[in-house]
């Protein structure tokens, strides 16, 4: 729970871990579509990483339900609070939708969906060119939307950290336990290697 107005350790681990994974996925995604040299390597990374994000997003939603996040500051203007709420649900929706779209899209394109080694996923939808075209388009457009949303999320987080300094960023960045302050003794007697 968030007795200290902070996200707990699992929530923070999931958040920062997925931040890295989602950002990597977005760059891998646009990179593999453009690149002539890296596509086989990047697509081999893209598929299992996408499924990992899907599973982690489900774990995260479950955890959020069990352990609700700390409330936003009471003095946050109403439009900002609304935007914060809406953008978070959109982020969750896209983190779930993108892997499912990618998986369906490969199925509709008649492609196999290999994971790692000999493991592969079954087709989610039938092989169908019209369905493929639609899903491929949606996967691309929503990918750009997710990147834009991630940038806005990042900008807003930094706004809380550097401009409002209202503890919203700290709630995800720090544990919330009282931080150990250096004692007078350590200040008075610094370690020898720091001297001179």
């Amino acid at each position, binding site marked *: 729970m968030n007795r200290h107005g902070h996200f707990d350790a699992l929530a923070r681990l999931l958040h920062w871990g997925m931040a890295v994974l989602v950002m990597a996925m*977005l*760059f891998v995604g*646009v*990179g*593999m*579509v*453009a*690149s*002539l*040299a*890296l*596509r*086989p*390597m990047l*697509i081999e990374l893209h598929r299992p990483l996408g499924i990992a994000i899907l599973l982690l997003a489900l774990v995260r939603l479950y955890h959020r339900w069990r352990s609700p996040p700390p409330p936003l500051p009471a003095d946050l203007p109403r439009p900002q609070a609304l935007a914060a709420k809406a953008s978070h649900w959109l982020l969750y929706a896209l983190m779930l939708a993108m892997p499912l779209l990618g998986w369906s899209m490969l199925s509709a*394109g*008649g*492609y*196999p969906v*290999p994971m790692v*080694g*000999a493991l*592969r996923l079954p087709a989610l939808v039938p*092989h*169908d*060119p*019209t369905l*493929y*075209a*639609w899903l*491929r*388009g949606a996967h691309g457009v929503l990918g750009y939307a997710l*990147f834009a949303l991630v*940038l806005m999320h*990042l*900008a807003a987080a*930094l*706004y809380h950290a*550097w*401009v409002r300094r209202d503890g919203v960023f700290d709630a995800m960045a720090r544990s919330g336990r009282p931080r150990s302050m250096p004692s007078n003794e350590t200040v008075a007697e610094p370690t020898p290697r720091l001297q001179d």
Partner: protein
Amino acid sequence: MPPKPPMPWPALTAIAIIVLVLATAFAWAAGWIGKDRLTAPRLVDAIEGGKPYAGFRRAHSKGVCVAGYFEPSTQAAALSRAQVFSQPRTAVQGRLSIGGADPYALDAQARVRSLALLLKADNGQEWRMAMNSFPFFSVSTPAGFHKQLVASRPDPATGKPDPARMAAFLAEHPEAKRFQAWAKSAPWSSSWANTAYNGVNAFRFVDAAGRERFVRWSMEPQAPFEPLSEAERQQADPDYLAEELRARLRRGPLRWNLVIIEAAPGDPIDDPSQAWPENRPRHIAGVLVLNNSQPQATGRCRDVNYDPTVVPDGIALSGDPILAARAAAYSVSFNRRERETARDQAPPATDVTMQEVAR
């Protein structure tokens, strides 16, 4: 009312810079900035040459669907642990085609013929192949291929490629002269069925013990070679190969031996423009049997991307840059034509035939 606090410009500027840097990196990765960088969409644009044919493959646009099966030889399972080499029979669907971007090209005039296959083993794993009648690729890099496309584009004034630009390309890519020599001297066979098709790119075969070997493969026809004379070529029907194939299939199934060629240490495994010496170990890994054909617009091959990097466990990719580029370009081509097909811009099969008859 308390006075408004001053705007925190340094913090806001820092945030804007961070967002801008990330957005720029993303745009670069997507190939949106740096116009001279060769990306998969730009390579396919060059193949289209400003004249895309809606609903068709951008390369090897004209062909027919074929189907049959693959039966491995007894020695195949020792080469690779891929299940197609251990199960008695694997269903195959594929495509015979001619090189070039024009879906209305004349069958008998095409120097390059191609065979694409999709083998789906009982464990669900797929092996897709895209083979060509040339023994080696014309250039060793995707950038070289792009330069070749640009150099061989017809000059609007003469309708023929500019000889000066072609000469400049050949000076920069001497390996392409080997390909030109092949195109000039290789005998023309009378059928898709008596043509050999070569994988050209190197792959890695992984056996049950995890041992790896670099290989290339070819489909060598069991049908004996029959020449197609210059006069026959000039007088042939526009759909000569498709009609000849149908006539042959009425007489019985067509067969090719799958020949696996092992590399020796030091053989070029990432340069498809270089053939390996003739004396490399060769193994007949099985027989491909094709027993029917359908028009490509209605056949099962139409909506399949024969991406040669779709390989089963037991077959792995090499570092060949042309192999990676083929996967990237075929994917762009597939996305474009499937979008056109979904928007009903692709002509139905009957229209293709009528247009060809009318020519």
